């Protein structure tokens, strides 16, 4: 008797994926929640017997940890300044490339998109040298305009802006592609009608383009927010969270706590706080989206 005949085919086709996702995604998510209520540390790594449940102690400790608040503040800074900035650049680039007057569109689209596919670690290293206070390309270009050299990655007030600039450069092409598709979906007849009514380019942009792009913009805002909350490789490679913790991010703090000091219970609590922020942000934005859709 053939075993395969007994099992519905849908189950056979789903089994490998659901098993893998169940064991290596859902199980760890649940385990992380449990972990966040324990004092799991380097001793527990040797034997799980060295672990105790500590209730909400990790969370309580977290909210009293100055490093957590610094990391949260830095991450929010990155998100609130870097997010809108990269979305604005994406929209600008999309409008330019989409323009009826523009030629060589595929070429520009390709060039603008190239940084997106590059390896973040590699380009972060490149930018570290571009930001070099004495020999870096950026300070050289600025010096041509008479601007004094800036110690981009060594000055606590410039390090985060430097990371934001890298992130905008690296990411704007991605959202640009989505914006271009959104622009292509706006019927030409709307613009033609507006022209006949005597609306100028600026008015057309605010009255037609912006409202018609609203669903696209909200989608982009959500994915950008989720991505930017997870800031990690840039500070890891460029600044190690410094100078003076000015680029320490939540994920970097989680990595250090979890995998450098092996405070896994504490790090799991951090991971869940990160999740809570991302979830809250997504819910808020999708609620807005529904409102706009109506």
């Amino acid at each position: 008797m053939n075993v395969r005949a007994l099992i519905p085919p849908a189950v056979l086709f789903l089994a490998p994926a659901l098993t893998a996702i169940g064991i290596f995604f859902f199980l760890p998510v649940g385990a992380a929640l449990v972990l966040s209520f324990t004092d799991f540390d380097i001793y527990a790594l040797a034997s799980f017997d060295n672990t105790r449940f500590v209730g909400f102690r990790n969370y309580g400790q977290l909210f009293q940890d100055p490093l957590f608040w610094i990391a949260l503040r830095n991450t929010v800074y990155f998100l609130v300044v870097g997010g809108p900035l990269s979305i604005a650049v994406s929209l600008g680039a999309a409008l330019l490339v989409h323009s009826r007057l523009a030629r060589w569109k595929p070429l520009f689209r390709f060039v603008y998109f190239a940084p997106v596919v590059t390896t973040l670690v590699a380009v972060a290293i490149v930018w570290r040298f571009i930001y070099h206070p004495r020999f870096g390309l950026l300070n050289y270009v600025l010096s041509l305009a008479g601007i004094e050299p800036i110690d981009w990655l060594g000055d606590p007030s410039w390090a985060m802006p430097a990371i934001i600039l890298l992130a905008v450069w690296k990411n704007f092409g991605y959202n640009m592609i989505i914006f271009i598709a959104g622009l292509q979906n706006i019927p030409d007849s709307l613009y033609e009608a507006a022209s006949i009514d005597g609306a100028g380019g600026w008015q057309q942009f605010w009255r037609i383009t912006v409202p018609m792009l609203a669903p696209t913009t909200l989608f982009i805002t959500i994915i950008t927010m989720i991505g930017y909350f997870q800031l990690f490789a840039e500070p890891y490679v460029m600044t190690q969270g410094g100078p003076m913790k000015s680029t320490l991010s939540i994920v970097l703090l989680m990595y250090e706590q979890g995998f450098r000091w092996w405070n896994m219970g504490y790090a799991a609590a951090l991971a869940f706080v990160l999740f809570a922020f991302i979830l809250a942000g997504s819910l808020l934005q999708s609620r807005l989206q529904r409102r706009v859709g109506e």
Partner: protein
Amino acid sequence: MKRRLATTVLHAVLLVIGVATLTPLAWMVSASFMQSGEASTFPPPFLPSSPTLEQYTSLFTRLNLARYLVNSVVVSVAVTLISLVINSMAGFAFAKYRFRGRRGLFNTLIASMVIPAQVTMLPLFLLLNKMGVINTYLGVIIPGMASIFGIFLIRQFAMSIPDSLLEAARMEGAGDFRVYRSVILPLCKPILLTLAIFTFMGTWNDFLWPLIVMTDDSMYTLPVALANMSGEHVQDTELMMAGAVLTVLPVLVLFAALQRYYLSGIMAGSVKE
């Protein structure tokens, strides 16, 4: 007249952004051909005075780069191939079979995409440690075997395949697996390519997970090796640029070759129900 002016300004702006976008990458390539120490002069040279392959040779002779390259290729190819099979099977099932709980199961998967991967990483490390696959290729491959995004992409695409084609194959005596193998897979080729590029590039460029799971130098993937080297060779600008070129080049070439499939994947991913 006004139109000509607008066109000129538009292209000037397009060009300026293009140059600004390419400059870091161009400088990376240029500096990788410089002699050691050449980039650390003022004003910064944009082109090597006498181009040399010195940096590339020392990466391969002194710094074991071939090993990291092999590691990156092995895990990226393995994850891509395995996940294509597993995701396409699941995507097909969600698209073409009716079973109890299909909708609920699919919606649960989609909803859980909001959970950031970092949440899973601590227990996943402990689990893989128990399984004894920390610091092996499997440590990177296993968590990448199936992806919800991949299942979603395939399912959306497979839903557009007419049922009549599947029926026709069944009339000729094809079993379920045969239908998947000979009807679904060939018709899904464009979306499979899209998913393949996404998965390959995602694995190739990934940093945090390989950094956690590859604890021994000999198992580093290129990004991890590069980050590690950049700590030790802070002064060796030219050497690091050569390493960056070798890391970035494969994905850039792949993207240039298969641009259409990659971009259509972004679009498919951005149209949620």
